């Protein structure tokens, strides 16, 4: 990934303002380079010139770098090819580019800017920044200056050719640096400076140039900040690391303290959310349809490749459920197939295997372990070569299936010759699930299917952030259970709720200890012995209304595993009724 980025940087660097002076210097520099090459050719013939040996080695190093770059370029080429249009290529570049913007107001600012310029760009804050427009010419000036310095160096090294050998060697080094850099990337001021410092120890004359460079650097620095592509690999990686720790080390995060409650917009439940969203007219439907049609043309190819022993995984933004569903209805009508909703919270490998053994293979027996079951299935499929099974897994990377063991088992299934697997992944880090061994089991062919469709089905199960989902179900169950109980039992439970609500702001609250509870219940004339209380508690526990936990001191603590909002609602309702 990193390397891809690098190559793109290189590509970025080619587009740059170049002054006339620069061009001239560049040409002169090139001449120098050509001479060096000639020297190298001589060196091939005359191996006695040991003095030049280090030069050769250096050249070699350069070549190695070149080779690396070559590889990187191949990778980069791919990215370009796959993303075909030019602006998109920058996408990759930005996955890992960093900026320190920590101001919480920034988002609001950006938003207002977005709003202000409805049809236009957001990045005007970046593009039209006056500071930068000034900096760019300066930057190019800096380049020309540094180039002249390099030129000077070249002259000097020839001029000083009578100097002691050690010195000469040192002088050769930077010349190569400048040479190689002018070819692969615009010269890098920081790097040159490092070399220049080395100079200082040898010759005083160079101090001047070093100063110039230092100046350049001061000028160039802000530019580097704004356009990270200017940086060299080394700087880049170190920055990357720094940025990471900057983002994660500081315990204080500056965000505003506003909460949703102040916003007066209550959490919506799933149903109202659904209703509201149905009113939104979908945008870009024509384009989306076109995208989908494009993918549908691949159906036959998928079938072919599945039959030839590959398995297919779909990735890209947007729900791939509808696409797979269409694939199923058009291609798989005459085959045995199993659809597996990975996003279903209750899914497990066990249930997948069960549905294969029970419903597909009509086996009624039970298995001691999942591995036994897998072995049995594998043998069955190996024995009966006419048996064919398609597995469609939506969200192979879901919470329930992403475990190592589950993936191993599914992988083993998919490696069978007559089981065909077609799956979709959505999570950002989904490919990390698979090591080399698993990947070879799966034998994936990757297909990008960006659909932009909403993850309606996939997110409906999730306990989503802003959706008031947990509310309705536990509340109704609470009222139902409590209605069937005696008034005393209800009182006991209410007591516990109140105590819990009183303590809701206490983060170290672990529950009400049994003894205290008993005491309180006695005082309220709800129970007469701790046995009756225990009997009542058993009732609650059976309905999963309370949870008991042993504390560190061995005392039993009682807790209602329902959030306080629901409890408050419940109390309010109770009050209304009575």
């Amino acid at each position, binding site marked *: 990934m990193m390397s891809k980025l690098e190559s793109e940087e290189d590509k970025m660097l080619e587009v740059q303002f170049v002054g006339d002076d620069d061009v001239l210097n560049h040409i002169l520099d090139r001449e120098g380079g050509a001479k060096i090459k000639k020297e190298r050719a001589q060196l091939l013939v005359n191996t006695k010139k040991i003095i030049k040996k280090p030069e050769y080695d250096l050249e070699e190093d350069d070549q190695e770098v070149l080779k690396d770059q070559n590889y990187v370029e191949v990778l980069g080429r*791919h990215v370009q090819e796959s*993303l075909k249009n030019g602006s998109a290529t920058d996408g990759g570049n930005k996955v890992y580019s960093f900026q320190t*913007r920590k101001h919480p107001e920034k988002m609001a600012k950006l938003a207002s800017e977005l709003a202000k310029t409805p049809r236009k760009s957001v990045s005007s804050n970046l593009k039209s920044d006056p500071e930068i427009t000034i900096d760019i010419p300066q930057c190019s000036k800096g380049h020309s200056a540094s180039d002249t310095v390099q030129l000077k160096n070249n002259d000097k090294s020839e001029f000083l050719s009578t100097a002691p050998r050690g010195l000469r060697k040192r002088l050769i080094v930077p010349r190569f640096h400048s040479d190689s850099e002018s070819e692969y990337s615009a010269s890098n001021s920081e790097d040159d400076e490092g070399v220049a410092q080395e100079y200082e120890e040898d010759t005083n004359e160079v101090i001047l140039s070093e100063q110039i460079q230092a100046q350049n650097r001061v000028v160039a620095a802000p530019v580097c900040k704004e356009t990270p592509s200017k940086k060299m690999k080394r700087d880049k990686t170190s920055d990357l690391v720094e940025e990471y720790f900057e983002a994660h080390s500081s315990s204080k995060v500056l965000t505003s303290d506003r909460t949703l409650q102040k916003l007066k917009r209550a959490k919506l439940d799933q149903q109202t959310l659904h209703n509201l969203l149905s009113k939104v007219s979908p945008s870009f439907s024509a384009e989306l349809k076109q995208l989908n049609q494009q993918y549908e043309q691949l159906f036959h190819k998928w079938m072919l490749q599945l039959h030839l022993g590959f398995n297919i995984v779909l990735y890209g933004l947007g729900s791939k459920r509808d696409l797979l569903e269409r694939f199923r209805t058009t291609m798989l009508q005459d085959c045995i197939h199993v659809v597996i909703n990975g996003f279903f919270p209750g*899914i497990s490998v066990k249930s997948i295997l069960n549905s294969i053994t029970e419903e597909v293979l009509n086996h009624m027996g039970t298995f001691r372990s999942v591995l036994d079951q897998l072995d049995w299935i594998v043998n069955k499929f190996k024995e009966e070569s006419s048996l064919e099974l398609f597995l469609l897994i939506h969200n192979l990377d879901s919470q329930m299936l992403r475990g190592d063991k589950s993936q191993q088992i599914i992988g083993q299934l998919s490696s069978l010759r007559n089981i065909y697997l077609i799956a979709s992944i959505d999570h950002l880090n989904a490919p990390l699930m698979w090591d*080399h*061994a698993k990947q070879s089991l799966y034998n994936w062919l990757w297909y990008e299917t960006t659909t932009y469709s909403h993850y309606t089905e996939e997110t409906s199960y999730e306990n*989503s952030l802003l959706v008031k989902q947990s509310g309705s179900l536990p509340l109704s169950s609470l009222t139902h259970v409590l209605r069937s109980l005696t008034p005393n039992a209800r009182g006991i439970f209410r007591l516990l709720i109140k105590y819990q609500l009183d303590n809701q702001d206490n983060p170290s609250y672990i529950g009400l200890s049994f003894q205290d509870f008993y005491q309180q219940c006695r005082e309220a004339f709800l129970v007469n012995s701790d046995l009756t209380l225990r009997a009542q508690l058993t009732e609650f526990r059976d309905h999963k209304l309370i949870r008991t936990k042993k504390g560190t001191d061995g005392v039993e603590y009682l807790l209602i595993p329902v959030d306080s909002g629901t409890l408050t609602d419940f109390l309010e309702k109770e009050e209304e009724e009575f």
Partner: protein
Amino acid sequence: MATSSVSKGCFVFKPDFKKRKISVPIEDYFNKGKNESEDSKLRFETYQLIWQQMKSETERLQEELNKNLFDSLIEFLQKSHSGFQKNSRDWGCQIKLREIPTAALVLGVNVTDHDLTFRSLTEVLQNNVTPYVVSLQAKDCPDMKHFLQKLASQLMDCNVGVQSKEKENVQVTQKKIHYSMDSLSTWYMNVTQKTDPKMPRKKRTPSSQWQSPPVVLILKDMESFTTKVLQDFIIISSQHLHEFPLILIFGIATSPIVIHRLLPHAVSSLLCIELFQSLSCKEHLTTVLDKLLLTTQFPFKLSDKVLQVLTNIFLYHDFSIQNFIKGLQLSLLEHFYSQPLSVLCCNLPEAKRRINFLSDNQCENIRRLPSFRRYVEKQASEKQVALLTNERFLKEETQSLIENLHVYHANYFLVLRCLHQFTSSLPKYPLGRQCAVHFQIRELYCTCLEKSIWDSEEYASALQLLRMLAKDELMAMLQECFKVFKYSSEKQLGNTAKRIEEFLAQFQSLDAEAKEEEEDTSESQSKGLQKTDLYHLQKSLLEMKELRRTSKRQTKFEVLREQLVSFIHSLVREYLLLPDTQPLHEVLYFSAAHTLRQHLNAAPRIALHTALNNPYYYLKNEALRSEEGCIPNVAPDICIAYKLHLECSRLINLVDWSEAFATVVTAAEKMDANSVTSEERNEIIHARFIRAVSELELLGFIKPTKQKTDHVARLTWGGC
């Protein structure tokens, strides 16, 4: 929808039994996919034929390459077991008997290929050494109990195999017994004694040459075994070694040191370890390439970029031969699937026959090939017209072109091998790309495919180095080259072989001449040294120096060497032409490198990022077109939410986020002049925000956090 439910996640669909019978043959999928499906049936058949050939060829290669390793392993096994066999009482043997013979098999990091190796190893051992070969994997043996259980059940299975499945039903019941090492050794005694009397009568495999064949236990992935299990097992089994002749084989992916890291000295001293090293995967790759691509046996070829993609995946990602073969299979499939003219990608006589049956459409396809068009442009005008209008003439021409292409390949590979012979031993390998210890022909092939090699600097320096070689080195190279040419019976290059032979002869005759020359010089030297006068001495020395310089330039050897180098150069110039320059190369070369990379080495993160950051790339709507680094406010909700969240650091305040989102979206809505009341619109926008946020959560960009109320944590870092 039939496949969504709140109570279950798996849905099984079984069609009616009658329907299921009619299964669609695979070819149909091959045909239906494309609109223009010319000769698709034939193409698919050719694909299957070539793929089968390639597959069996690789399997054969694998066997061949493993042969050495397996032979030495078998030898080791036999040698170490003979001690047990003899039952000798001498002290040394007794000591040795306490040690478990162990073969540490270092296989390299390409774990995916190991399975294949172990499978063939098991087969070989079962055929040659012992029927009792068991292989265990770490994931099957979390503890001692499972370890022994697996071992025992597999052993019994081996036994069943030997004894013609006579106690198949017994075995099932046995499964539940708890095994110990004792029970295993008694079982072993039983089995060996039982089979003993039968032995002479049956006279089966050489495996039964011993009364008590050893039990070979292969631990496939030694590194991932729990140390405790390994240690316990080794200690226990060393106690039982005299009655249960165990031999261990460790499969090691990293380095042999790992044995000592896993096992303390007390345990490892119970083992008698011998190290075996498998062939390096790089060499393996070179052989595979050599036999599959650098040959005229298979007409299918890869273009430079495709080959580079495949080798890069191999060298920089997994070192897996299996994956490489998979890539090869995919490119073969893609080639036949996407190129209608690939029907001609078969052996020469068959291709010629097929050309005669080409349809009109296919002829059009030929005319549309860029390489063919370039070829036509070079022809005389009458021929151009004929080629473009006359089908029959076109077919004849195509036949000769295809034949040329095959000849071109035959010559190409010969010259390539020849060049490799000459350059492979040069210092620093000027033509090698990776800094390999051993410069391989695969690298040379890559370079030659990529560009005209004679233009490259490396080639020039290689030639220069060649000009400095000594005679015996040159002769050795020539001899090798001669061998290469001799094995091939190409007419075109027949005289090349003759030339090389001539060169060889000339070099040999040089020997005699050189001797004479030496005598000459020594004579002159002795003559020159007679004078004692200083002035004359100086003069004569100068003369001699002059003489030597001129003579050096004219040495016959040097002239010959120069000739040889220029001969090689001319060969390279003539035969190592780029494949792109050949007309009709599209028929044989697969060049869609990017599709290959997309399917084999995809980058889901980048795709996701592009989709979120630049929706215009996927949705070609002008409203979405924007400058770099920004998105218009009419973009899909999730893109806007994503863009806004990039501005935040580790935690995001939901209120701020939602307000920012609302601001952006409202600005976009205003243009539509919606007539809905503002309250309802706000509700809807809030709902959209919720949807976008939960989608981002599903994608793994954010997660809920309890650090602060109404905040979410960002899981990625950095901004736009």
